[in-house]
């Protein structure tokens, strides 16, 4: 059977769940227009690619994320083994991410694409945070600019964002 059902509408299902629990509606971020468009200036095979993921990935030895609007981030060395990566998050089933962090933080995948020349290189530093943050303001005003500044300093050409 091919896909027979449309994409899961998480906004609608969250609304229904909150209604059932007696909560007021959740306010999703709504942007009428996308942010400014930036054209790719060279082929992917020449690009240094950055990675930012919100799946709650940390490395053993780092402080884990907490679940109360944690707007901190972790720097992950993309040259080190992903066997020491961990996952913590309250809003998705962690089973598969703990079995293979590449499902939400594709470091091995991107290193492989760099080896085969599909991308120029993977940046040495990737960034992880735990996306269960109820304050969109804190993300917009603090976390997002911090990470954007860091990837620019890292000299990346494009960044792959992997939310959960």
């Amino acid at each position, binding site marked *: 059977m091919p896909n027979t059902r449309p994409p899961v509408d998480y906004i609608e299902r969250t609304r229904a769940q909150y209604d059932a629990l007696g909560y007021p509606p959740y306010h999703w*971020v709504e942007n*009428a227009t996308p942010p400014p468009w930036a054209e*790719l200036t060279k082929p992917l095979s020449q690009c240094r690619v950055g990675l930012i993921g919100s799946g709650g990935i940390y490395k053993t030895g780092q402080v884990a994320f907490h679940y109360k609007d944690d707007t901190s981030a972790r720097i992950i060395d993309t040259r080190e083994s992903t066997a020491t990566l961990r996952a913590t998050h309250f*809003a998705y089933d962690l089973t598969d991410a703990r079995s293979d962090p590449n499902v939400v933080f*594709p470091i091995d995948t991107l290193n492989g694409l760099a080896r085969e020349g599909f991308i120029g290189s993977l940046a040495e530093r990737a960034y992880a945070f735990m996306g269960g943050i109820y304050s969109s303001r804190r993300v917009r005003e603090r976390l997002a600019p911090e990470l954007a500044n860091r990837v620019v300093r890292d000299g990346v050409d494009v960044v792959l964002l992997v939310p959960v």
Partner: protein
Amino acid sequence: MTSALSITRSANPPRAAYLDFPLGHTAGKPNQPRLNRDIVRDALNAFETLKQPGQVSMLPYQWADDDAWKDGVMRPRSPVAKHDDSRVERDATPQYQTEQDRALAEAELARGGCATCVWLDDPA
């Protein structure tokens, strides 16, 4: 990349690639490197193929032979149980995957802090 199309359309990034997988698998399936390589390659291709702000590339992968998994997503059982409430009270205690992780991190902190942690001050 995204596995939540309605949320991504609401946030409206310049470009996106949609993978119709359950949450927690934005970049593929566990321990399937060949599949994941194809998925991430196709997602990256959107950097070259999408030409209009707000476009979403629909990736041609499906999670299973049918879409039955979609039926149970965030459908509270009836009557609604506290178990279904993801908005329980939370605190700022780090949530380690393992106790060993906690010990390693606390030892690191005792030696002077987590050098690869990025702490942000809460805006006033």
